[in-house]
Every structure is written in C-alpha cells, then in structure tokens.
C-alpha cells in the first residue's frame, strides 16, 4: 500500500498527488514512469513520475481525471492509499548538454516534462519551455517550470492566458528566431504528432514520451506496442521516449482508442 501524503487540485480535473514510495523515489530518473492500481479490482495504468523527494521518500504524480481508473485515483484523499505503485519503469531520458532545448508540454503532459526541464537546465542547456492548454485554468506547474527555464512561452487555445494559438506556434517562434538543437515534447498524441511534423520540417532532433495502454508495464503483455522506424517496439521497456520523427502516431492514436 502506498500512502497519499498530499493532494492538490490544479484544476477540477487535474490533481497532483505526493505518494509515499521510498524505493521508487530513490531509483527514479527523469523520464521514468510507474504503474498504479488504485484499489483491488482496479486497472493497472501507467503514470509518468513528475518529481521525487529522496529524503521524504515520496514521488509526485499528476493525474487527469479522464476515465474510470483515473477517476478512482483522483477521488482518493490525503491519508488514503493507492493499492499498488510499481516502478520506476521504462528507460530514463538521455540528458546531455546539446545547446538550446525547447521543451513543450500540453495539458497534463507538463508534469512528466518538468523533471526533464530541470535535468536539461542542470546539464547546462539553454531551456525554452512552451506550455500549452485549452484555457488558462489548465496551464499547470508554470511556476516550477519557470524556475528551471530561461524563457517560458504560454499558449492557450482561447487566448485566455499568454498567446492565443497552438503549441506548434510557440515552438515555431523559437525555431525562427534562434538555433534550436533539440525539442522534447510530451502531451496528447495528436499534439506530439504536430510538433513532430513541425520539427521534422526544420530537421531538429525531437524526443517524445508516449503514454500508451499498458497492463503489466514490464514487457510481458505487448499492449503498448508502437511502430517506430518501421519496427514494432514496446513503450514500457524500449520507451517511453522515442525519436518523434520515427513514431507512427496515427497507428498509436488508433490503438489508444482500443477500448473506447
């Protein structure tokens, strides 16, 4: 059992949990994820680790209430427990000093992006972060992102905060005004697809982090398979990060709708 130490609402549907998981806190690196089961009879779902505190023995998870299982998790309160949290799983992000890195996150994807922003900055990169959401209330973790970014660009669909427009507009602004060595994108599959198309045009190496359907998360079931560079790969053990230009996002989006 994994105790919830604190619960904060970013918005009505987006919740930040700090969960007691000392072994995971110690071994996790940016890019890793965990498999969470809210209760007995619950589904196993993957959630990327947003932060960890080794001393306190906790990890931070940001959950968007979008279905049965995320709703069960979001309904839990401080002091209650998640039945299972297992990890850290997947391959950690390769952090190098490459020069200028644009980190763009959409919606709840900003949460797993945060540790990468932090690590990229600490590795000596110039970090420009582009945060995007439908509307002002859905922009999360802005303050924390600012603390590790040289510049933050906010994009909202409705123009209620920052600039009006899609994440790709924000990213393209940066590309047009200065040399960009790498892009990291985490968010909805459709967003990552368009970011990938944009950066392919400019030939900028781009990493994406995929959040596919999983069951065990340790390579056993193959539910998470995606086509990367024409080959079938497993997100849980080969990923979750891949070269975005090589990912077949259309196939991935079809597979994400397997149970809809």
């Amino acid at each position, binding site marked *: 059992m994994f105790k919830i130490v604190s619960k904060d609402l970013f918005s009505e549907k987006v919740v930040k949990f700090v969960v007691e998981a000392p072994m995971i806190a110690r*071994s996790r690196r940016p890019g890793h994820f965990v498999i969470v089961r809210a209760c007995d009879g619950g589904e196993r779902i993957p959630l990327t680790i947003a932060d960890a505190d080794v001393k306190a023995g906790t990890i931070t998870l940001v959950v968007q209430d979008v279905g049965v299982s995320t709703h069960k998790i979001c309904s839990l309160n401080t002091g209650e427990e998640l039945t299972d949290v*297992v990890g850290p799983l997947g391959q950690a992000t390769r952090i190098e000093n490459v020069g200028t890195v644009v980190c763009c996150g959409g919606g709840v994807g900003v949460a797993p992006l945060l540790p990468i922003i932090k690590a990229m900055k600490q590795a000596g990169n110039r970090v420009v972060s582009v945060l995007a959401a439908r509307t002002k209330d859905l922009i999360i973790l802005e303050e924390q992102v600012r603390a590790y970014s040289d510049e933050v660009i906010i994009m909202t669909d409705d123009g209620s905060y920052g600039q009006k427009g899609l994440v790709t507009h924000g990213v393209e602004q940066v590309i047009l005004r200065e040399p960009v060595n790498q892009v990291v994108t985490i968010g909805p599959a459709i967003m990552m697809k368009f970011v990938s198309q944009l950066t392919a045009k400019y030939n900028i190496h781009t990493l994406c982090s995929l959040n596919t359907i999983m*069951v065990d998360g340790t390579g*056993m079931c*193959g539910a998470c398979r995606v086509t990367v560079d024409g080959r079938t790969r497993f997100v849980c053990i080969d990923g979750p990060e891949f070269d975005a230009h090589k990912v077949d996002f259309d196939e991935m989006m*079809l597979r994400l709708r397997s149970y809809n």
Partner: protein
Amino acid sequence: MEQINKDDISASRNDIWRQQLRNNMSAKERTAIPRVEMPHLEPDYRVSCSEEVNCGLSVEQAVTEASRCMDCPDPQCVSGCPVSINIPGFIKNIQRGRVDIAAAVLRNTSSLPAVCGRVCPQEKQCESRCIYHKMHKQPVAIGYLERFAADNAPIADAVAPTPNGIKIAVVGSGPAGLSFAGAMAQYGYDVTVYEALHEIGGVLKYGIPEFRLPNSVVDKEIHALQQSGVKFLRDCVIGKTLSYDDLHSLGYQGIFVASGAGLPRFMSIPGENLVNVMSSNEYLTRVNLMGAGSPMHDTPVAHGKCAAVIGGGNTAMDSCRTARRMGAEKVYVVYRRSEAEMPARVEEVIHAKEEGVEFLTLHNPIEYIGDDKGRVCAMRVQRMELGEPDESGRRAPVPIEGAVEQIPVDMVIVSVGVSPNPIIPSSIPELEISRRGTIVVNDCTMQSSIGDIYAGGDIVRGGATVILAMGDGRRAAQSMHEALSKQR
C-alpha cells in the same frame, strides 16, 4: 543426487507392505483393469463459466488406478520425470490408503505436486515410459494420481528448521522462484521473494487459466511457504525498483533469478498492430490476473465474436478456450504444421475441440486486415503442406503456392512464443547472457557468471514447462546451499 534417489526408490520397494501389495494381485488381474477416466464437466456447461474442467478422482477410482501400477523393479516412469519423482512409491501409498505419505513422497522431489499433477505433460514424460505401453495398453494415470495425492493429503506442518540468519533474495514468484524459496526455507535461510506484479504466483496466476489450474490451488502452496517463513514483496521489480547493488546493501548473500519469459513474440506481418490483435500474454493477463469481464473489475478486454488464436502450444489452447468462455461464438486455432506436430498437450487439444474450437492446421496467417477504425476484421491465411524435417526434427511447413484464403475475424490472439524478460539481463551488465537473451548458467549448479547469482526457469530455458522450472529451483537451492555452507 540422481543415484541416491535411485537407491532410495529401490530400497523403499522392498518394504514389507509393498511386497504384500505386489503379491495380492496377479499381473493378469492388474493389467485387466481399464485406465481410469478423469471425471470432468460437460463442454456445454464449462464454456459458460471458469470452473475447473477436470474434477479429480474419487478415493475409489484412485485406489483402483493405483492398483494397476505393476511396481516395476526398474521403473521407467521415474526416468521420464524431469525431477525423478519416486512414482511407484507415491502410487503404492495411495493404494494402501496412505495419501499423507503419498504426498510426502511427492514433496521429497516436487515443490508443487498439486500444480504439476494438473499441468505437466505426463503423456510425454512419466506416462510415456509406462510398462503398459509394451502391452499395448494405456499407461497408469500417473498425473491424475499425483493430483489426487496432493489435493487430498492434509497439509503437513512444515518442520520449522533452525534459522541460520542468512538472507536470500528471489526474483520472481513463478514455479521456479516458489520451489527455490521453499527449498531454501527448509534449509533454514531467511528468504524474501520479490514479485513485479501485484499478485504472487507468476505464470501460474497470470497465464494458466482458472479452468485448468484454480488460483486456490496456487494460493494453498503460497500459504504453505509463508507458514515456513518465506516473505513475499509485491510491486517490486528487481533491476528497476531495487538494483543488484541494493540487494547487497540489504544484506542478501545469494540471489536466485527466476524472472520468467517476458516478451511476447509477434510474427512481423502486416496488420499485426491493428486494434484487437494482441499477444496471448496480454489476453490471458487481462482475464486471469486482472479479472477482465467479471463484475467489480475495471480492466477491459476485447470480446470478439469470431476469434483466431495463432499457434499450437498450451498457451494457444488456454487462449482459445478462454475466448470461448468470454463469449466468442467461433474460435479458430491457426497452426502452420499438422496436429501431430502440435506442442500442446493432447488433453488440452481434446478439451478445446469438445468446447467447439475449430482447428485450422497447416494454415499460416500472412496478413491482418482492418476496418476504417483500425480494428481487425479479417485475416489472410496461407495453406501449408509438410516438407522435409527441419532442425527441430519436425517436418517443416511449406506454403502451397496460390492457396491463400481470407477469413473474417474480429479478434486475433498471437501465441507464437515468448522471449526472456530483458529487465535483469539489461540491468546487470556483467551477467553473461546468451544470444537468445537468456541467462547463461552452469547446467548442474544453476550458477550464473556472477558467483552469488543463480538462475532458473524460463529466464534460463527461454520457454519450458512448470516442472522443469520447478526442478531448476530445487537444483539451484541445493547448490547454493552447498556453496554457502562451504563459505561458513
């Protein structure tokens, strides 16, 4: 070890009561008794539920079947058993009404008799060597009797050994891990089993369905291990949550890796990533481990009306029979060779056929076709014929040119084998790994290239049976115990 076992087996044969049992009945009478038939649920009923198909023998049936055993002076069945169980020894104890001793004889060499009595391919092992074959009669039903003894014996209180305080870690709680843990606990070690999933039991829980191996049977074994002091830690992936070095810091002096065959194989044919095409591991895990399709469980699973299962092994049989129980009206097994080459147990094939599964042998899928939503709606299959024997000794399937047909299906379960789980091999770079991704061990001791790491089961064999995995666990325990005893 084997020689000692052989001596034990012939010594116990000379017990007075055994001699009496042999003299009580003439060979003619014995061999005239027909082999017992396993009582089982009727096909129509069993596809409507997940109840165990085989019901087990009654006491009377078991005693009669046990009396068929000739108690041979040089019992060949024992040499057909991968762990050399004293087969006549336990069978004759059933005959004289001492099920408790029969179970104890089994437990001398097997950690999981109730499991092996159900899932071992006896027809290819012990029963294939039975003297009755020479008389052109059906062999003694050794598997049924093993199950009978294991199910009906009271659980003997494990004699608590003196703890020696030495900490041992086990990676994985499948058959290899459980049998290793049990043996080490009996030697007095402080054993902790780490399991990546939220349930203990490995493939016995996520893989083999309830109708073939009820969870209660596995839980009984796990409970017995807990009673003997074995600790279990769920949700912990060695190589991820804790590293090899972490295990040392925690004071473990020996590690047994039994992390199993993780990665499902696919065939790399067009359309394999369509929605509702999945591995048998995924399908069986959703249903068996996650309870998909039953109330109070959130995990979804595809409910195909017309399913194809690709492959001819036991996992394929488990998948096709599960699909029938999950409501599929039509289920095909698509296998590229003929039925004679099928690796699945004969009993599973018979059960599957009784349950209405249709076998498309000498067929091989070459493409899956999807609808506008990316869901599989048909498969294209190539008809095959048997050619010359290949490296496996079986006649190789060869495509018949032009013989391709398209069959509508709305679910495909790919069951063409698994590769070893890569997590341990990739997290300990110094560990010697074979080209197939298995951990290289000394065949006798199960010791890996790193002195304190032993390994067994599918992570070493790539894909084997419960009994071989269990045998590995016991062998590894014996040699690790010897090695650690020398160090002290």
